[in-house]
């Protein structure tokens, strides 16, 4: 029993179909509980008032935007090294989800920034590097869409993902050099010192859990769709050959 068994599309689909209902339900439960808890049952912040509550969307979305790219990187590597089609399709399936997460983070950030910083947008390193990440996502998806042959597309996008990762990290630190920050430091970290107060912390954790589960469910769902699209195309090609 190894993880690589699920590189077989049939086994992958069978497993993902068994897991997916649980993922959907648990992510819905987490999000509903976390968001209601966060929105209605936590106090307003001393200085930020009720605008602090956008943290329950902003932070998990930003976290998932980066993790989605990281997942695409791992999936691309697996495709390059072991050439499992499911892996390449999973990377393809994750990209649009990552775009939406990036957009949610940018938009909620702007909505929060307007009353708090007095501006919708500032050329702050964090904001800028997220915008650059968004551009990388766009290029990645555009390249997938532009190439007809699926294996060529998978190869090219995987290499683009690897090169893009290097440059995204480079840009992240280059913008740090280029401008001073307006964005606050990390609200979450593994060493307890920097964390937000517990009242906000626990609903936030629930929301993050909800976002992770939602991301997993969406990626599995979309990967399944991609596999079926590939299958249909193969079937149609075979019938066209017979006819």
């Amino acid at each position, binding site marked *: 029993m190894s993880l690589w068994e699920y590189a077989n599309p049939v086994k992958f689909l069978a497993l993902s179909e068994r897991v997916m209902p649980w993922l959907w339900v648990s992510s819905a439960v987490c999000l509903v509980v976390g968001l209601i808890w966060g929105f209605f049952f936590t106090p307003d912040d001393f200085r930020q008032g009720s605008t602090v509550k956008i943290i329950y969307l902003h932070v998990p979305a930003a976290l998932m935007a980066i993790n989605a790219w990281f997942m695409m990187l791992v999936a691309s590597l697996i495709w390059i090294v072991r050439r499992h089609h499911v892996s390449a399709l999973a990377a393809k399936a994750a990209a649009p989800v990552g775009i939406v997460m990036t957009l949610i983070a940018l938009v909620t950030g702007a909505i929060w920034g307007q009353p708090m910083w007095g501006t919708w947008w500032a050329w702050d390193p964090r904001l800028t590097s997220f915008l650059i990440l968004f*551009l990388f996502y766009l290029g990645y998806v555009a390249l997938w869409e532009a190439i007809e042959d699926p294996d060529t597309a998978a190869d090219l996008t995987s290499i683009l993902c690897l090169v893009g990762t290097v440059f995204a990290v480079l840009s992240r630190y280059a913008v740090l050099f280029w401008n001073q920050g307006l964005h606050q430091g990390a609200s979450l970290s593994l060493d307890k010192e920097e964390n937000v107060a517990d009242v906000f912390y626990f609903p936030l954790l629930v929301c993050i859990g909800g976002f992770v589960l939602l991301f997993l469910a969406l990626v599995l769902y979309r990967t399944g769709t991609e596999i079926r699209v590939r299958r249909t195309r193969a079937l149609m090609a075979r019938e066209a050959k017979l006819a």
Partner: protein
Amino acid sequence: MRALFFRDLALALRAGGGFGLGLAFFLIVVVLVPFSVGPQSALLTQIAPGVLWLGALLACLLSLDRLLAVDWEDGALDLLATSPLPLEGILAVKAAAHWVTTGLPLVLAAPVLGVLLNLAPGGYGVLVLSLALGTPALSMIGAFGAALTVGIKRGGLLLSLLVLPLYVPTLIFGAEAARRAAQGLDPATPLLLLAGITLAVLAAMPFAAGLVLRVNLR
């Protein structure tokens, strides 16, 4: 390899438009800037380093889709790929030829255009130096982008979308160095970082580009 380099140079020189076009584009972008932001010389002095860098970057981008597409269309690229030269070397040479025909003229023309934008007197030397350090990276990253999109019809727009985000670090450090020098500050740190990025790109990018081109030639 040398033969290929001179062949690419000769093609770019004789095929009309390749050589001068980037330069003319650079000129026109720089001329359009005062029309769009107004002719106040203080404002122009302030934005000159950034505008010159951005103009050079766009001019570089303009000729990228011809870097491999011409050879792809007439089959020369397949012949090159079957030659004993490594594909990585071919791409590095092509990027070098692209730099000589596009990057180098831009570097040499930048001070002249700097006069048009009222660049501060201290900025000229570092502007030229930063462009000379940065444009090779632009050509090499561009060769990677061209190799990615070579098989796609009308890949030019996609090429820009893919390549421009990769240009971000180079642009940041290059323009920062030019700006610091123009304001009389010490530009050494961004110049060193810029040179580091260029060296890393020159060392690693031919391999990524070769990998991608091999997939496209399959």
